């Protein structure tokens, strides 16, 4: 074992990068759940985003176009979920599972001729001299665009939910859809928009894994990150800033166990690889005593009886 091989500054920088996919998926799901919809298809939308982003980046050579394609891919898939739950009024748990199963199959089908290819590198954002500041430079200013985009989305979501009319309407729909309907808000339209946003965020998060974290395409490569993101929303009590905190915690553990694997700690690799999932369970247990923060209409089907 050689712990001195781990450079703490690079470790923290890597932790921030590792938490970005979880952060993106979780902030999207947070908006969906604040609108009163439980979409268990995050994993399916992430993997679809991962494969869309990968294919487009390889073919166009531009990661930016790839990330846009990933967001579109995730969002389009989420519309299937929106159709099932908002138009066909299907059970949200079952529809979400269907979305995940379908997404995993679809991505495997789309990506089969892309296995083993290396995508073009996504460059770090040129922040010039800022990145050269010792210690703080690499940790805060040495990242790619998507890391900052993730942070910006969290801030924007927080501000929108807290200060704007749109946010108020969204929360009203999530807390009590009957009351919101009686006030004249288009419950289904608002929820569909929220689901769409959640899909786009999940797609971005997936593409971050396939284009930057790994960067390669393999079947089922999101490996449960989508589910961890779902757990994270509960962990965060449906609050944006706590999603950020939680994402850093989970991303940190994922990165730390990878570094420990690399440093040759005397724990078998498989048991280290289990740790993010076990920590998720433990955190869920600690925090699930307080359910009072959950949106009132979460998971319930809305049908306006005329």
């Amino acid at each position, binding site marked *: 074992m050689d712990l001195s091989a781990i450079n703490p500054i690079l470790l923290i920088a890597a932790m921030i990068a590792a938490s970005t996919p979880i952060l993106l998926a979780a902030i999207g799901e947070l908006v969906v759940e604040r609108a009163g919809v439980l979409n*268990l298809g995050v994993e399916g939308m992430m993997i679809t985003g991962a494969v869309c982003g990968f294919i487009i980046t390889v073919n166009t050579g531009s990661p930016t176009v790839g990330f846009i394609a990933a967001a579109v891919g995730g969002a389009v898939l989420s519309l*299937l979920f929106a*159709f*099932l739950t908002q138009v*066909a*009024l*299907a*059970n949200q*748990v*079952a*529809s979400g*599972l*269907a979305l995940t*199963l*379908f*997404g*995993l*199959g*679809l991505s*495997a*089908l789309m990506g*089969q001729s892309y296995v083993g290819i290396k995508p073009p590198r996504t460059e770090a954002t040129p922040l010039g001299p800022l990145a050269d500041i010792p210690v703080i430079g690499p940790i805060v200013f040495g990242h790619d665009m998507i890391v900052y985009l993730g942070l910006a989305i969290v801030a924007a979501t927080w501000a929108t939910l807290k200060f704007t009319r749109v946010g108020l309407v969204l929360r009203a729909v999530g807390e009590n859809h009957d009351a919101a309907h009686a006030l004249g808000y288009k419950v289904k339209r608002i929820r569909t928009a929220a689901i769409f946003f959640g899909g786009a965020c999940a797609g971005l998060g997936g593409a971050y894994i396939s284009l930057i974290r790994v960067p390669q395409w393999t*079947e089922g490569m999101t*490996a*449960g990150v989508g*589910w*961890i993101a*779902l*757990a994270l929303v*509960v962990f965060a009590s449906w609050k944006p800033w706590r999603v950020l905190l939680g994402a850093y915690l989970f991303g940190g553990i994922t990165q730390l166990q990878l570094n420990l694997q690399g440093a040759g700690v005397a724990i*078998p690799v*498989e*048991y280290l*690889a*289990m740790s993010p*999932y*076990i920590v*998720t*369970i433990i955190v*869920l*247990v600690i925090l*699930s*005593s307080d*359910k009072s923060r959950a949106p009132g209409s979460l998971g319930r089907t809305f*049908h*306006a*009886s*005329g």
Partner: protein
Amino acid sequence: MIRLEKRPQPSATMSWATPLLAVVATMIFGGALFAALGKDPIEAILTIFWEPLFGEFSFFYRPQLLIKGAPLVLIAIGLALGFKAGIWNIGAEGQYIVGAICGAGAGLAFYPTESIFIFPLMILAGALGGCLWALIPGFLKVRFGTNEILVSLMLVYVAEQLLASMSLGLLKNPEGFGFPGSRNLQQYPSAHNAEIITNTGMHWGVVAALIAVIFSYVLLTRHRLGFAIRVTGEAPRAAKFGGVNPARLILFCLGMSGLLAGLAGMFEVAGPSGQISIDFNVGYGFTAIIVAFLGRLNPLGIVAAGLLMALTYIGGDIAQSQLGLPAAAIQVFQGMLLFFLLALDVLTNYRVRFGTGEVA
């Protein structure tokens, strides 16, 4: 304008018709998908649904129907109990893996002793392993109110890592020239889940699946506990006033579904698959979710749905080797089936009305 009007009672006709409609719709859209992949859609659909049953080599494929159908039915029967009560165990894949590890471990512990007690012991170990693995989310839900969906799913990933660790470590074949994977149980007569009647595919897992179907049918239609499950799913508050103990019901549903998934894993590892290896599991635990819904959470429906799903697996394999259809296409096909089922289910609970209604 199309409007939906809630039916006072779910339509009984539609409840049976929607799975059939969903299969037809999936065939049409699946055919379109196959055409998009450059295959003849009619030929592909026929290869998947006709070839295994009535084709030239059907004598070889028909037994596969039981081999692949049994684990699906076994797992889906357990899942359906929980789904009916609104208890969502979606980690059957993990319970299946742990059942297989425990079952195989119990057998291999006695290698090379031959005894008629070894196989029953393995069955017990497999059932217990799956049951305990599923009781983790059950216990956490009862004690701390933790969401069972997320915990049971997290445990799938933990079980997969455990499987890797076992096939590289504790259960690794000492005479396997360093390759990962356990000893082959098919070459250990006392532990082998052999065919009961040769060339029929009929092994002990099929028997267990049949028993599970009968058991769950009786439970749901004739027993107080089955009634409690149904009431809890349809009206949780009424169930509480009626004296149903929700904690006990959660533990029963999760424990029972884990037990059946564990059994499925054990019968698979001792029979058709033969050894614990890193990629021993093939996703039956997730496909069984589709089977449970397609069978309308009804034991007899699940048998039909399980056989249909088994058919798509076998037909998919044939289409892969004969037409070069990618394996993932079948996965998409199965996912589509669940989509259409959920979408068409609206017809069971709602009437579709055409024409302009009053302003809602």
